[in-house]
């Protein structure tokens, strides 16, 4: 797929040199942590904190994640619910902390947003995409964020404008940009296609 330079590029998690490790995943992202564990040095998880949001995967990953014996393990229902714990953890962390984010673009983006806000250098963060490609978009007109967008174009859930979902991505907003697709002639209504799955 042709892409642009602001579009995030996701890699494969691998253990990094560091004093402590914070691993955060949602749904199928858990399997990226399990894959990383196969390559990790023996004492890696003794200095690790895992935060997991199971979502649609239910209880299929908990047992294997706990079996890694991380120093701390957390499970929560949503990104919003996990953020206070993440923010407290980062406020008390030291340089030498490495972060690993795995799962949907929404999770990766929002956790990275909180981490950068806390002063972490983005170079300390590894990411790996697993699961859904649904997008978070910011409407450039009303500034509202619409979650889980799967279509092109998409309707802004706040102001109702029909938006072209661009590949242009802001780490600060953890969102793609949506721009009115028929501003020149509002009577033109393009076909809607389901493309972000």
């Amino acid at each position: 797929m042709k892409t642009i330079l602001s579009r995030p590029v996701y890699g494969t998690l691998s253990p990094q040199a560091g004093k402590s490790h914070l691993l955060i995943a949602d749904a199928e992202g858990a399997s990226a942590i399990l894959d990383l564990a196969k390559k990790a040095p023996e004492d890696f998880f003794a200095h690790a904190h895992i935060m997991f949001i199971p979502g649609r995967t239910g209880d299929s990953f908990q047992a294997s994640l706990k079996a890694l014996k991380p120093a701390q393990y957390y499970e929560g229902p949503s990104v919003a619910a996990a953020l206070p714990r993440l923010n407290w953890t980062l406020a008390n962390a030291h340089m030498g902390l490495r972060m690993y984010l795995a799962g949907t673009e929404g999770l990766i983006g929002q956790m990275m947003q909180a981490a950068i806000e806390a002063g972490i250098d983005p170079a300390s963060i590894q990411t790996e995409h697993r699961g859904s490609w649904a997008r978070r978009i910011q409407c450039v007109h009303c500034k509202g964020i619409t979650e889980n967008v799967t279509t092109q174009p998409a309707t802004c859930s706040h102001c109702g404008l029909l938006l072209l979902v661009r590949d242009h991505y802001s780490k600060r907003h953890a969102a793609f940009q949506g721009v009115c697709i028929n501003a020149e002639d509002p009577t033109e209504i393009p076909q809607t296609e389901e493309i972000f799955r």
Partner: protein
Amino acid sequence: MGINFRKETFRDDFTFRNSPENIRRFPFPYHEDAYMYSVNIEPHVPGPKNSVFEHLVDVDEHYVSEMQDRAMVLAEDPLRCQSLPHMTLAGWDLLELLMTEKAASYPEHFSLTREGDRWHWINRPLGIDDTFTFGDVSTLPYGPMEYITRQSQGDFAILDQRDNNLWMDAGMITTQADWSLDFDIGMNFFEWHAPVPLAHEMGVFTRALKFLTNIQQGKPARRLNWTMTINPRLDTSPENFHKWGSDRLTVTPENVGEKVHLRVELQSFWRLPRSNALVFPIRCYLLKMDELVTVPKWARRFHRVLRDLPVELAEYKGLTRYRQTTVEWLSKYDDGAPTSPGFSPD
């Protein structure tokens, strides 16, 4: 003497006009009868009298009205002016640059007196007379960047330089062409230029970044860019695209002269001394087609440039819907006579 500031609007009834003298100082951007994309950077040094390059920071007859339009944009949408927390020092740098340049170039309109940190700034056209402590934000009604750019024509992007890249970490952007400061703030040079087609593959931005990161204090540079706008609207932001996008459908053979504008951006690039950041002032000049054809050489040349512009470029600049109508209108002013080389009117 001094400048005779016009009272005019850039929205609603669109009373913006250029005086005959101002038409002749318009920075016409084509030195030949065709336009080719190029980086075209040159040293930003003072140019000929009665040109927009006469002073390094140009103030013209639209100053007061442009500042009123900016105040209206900010009242509607304060997110057009943002500065990340580490950029305050760069804001003071910019305040110093603009105040010292304006006071030196236009002493009849601006004055700056400094006694140590105690600064006294007088802006007569806008009726401002403030005394403040340089470096102390509590002594100004706005942050330093917002304070001075509410008094300076053109958009301003301030770039932090680190890790061999430039980061769009502050700006005053109310007259932009198709990019959103609120969305792009915090991005690096490649990220915020990501939507520009083709240029990345050509290595344009890699070369431009290398050039820009080496700009040194006291040696600013500049380039011209251009597009077109329907109605003399300064605020052609993506934020309001759904409100002004339909203007492009209103062009008819009868109203081209009044409605269609050539829009030239004079971009300059400066190293800021305390913060080691860079500032890019992006100054916008508008010229109506009716005004453009008062200079026969420009009329002939712009007709040829617009007629022969590659389709992709016309599409990227958003000209497609009214290009043909405009070319036909301009053809009446092109007798096919040769034009002299260079930018200036004959």
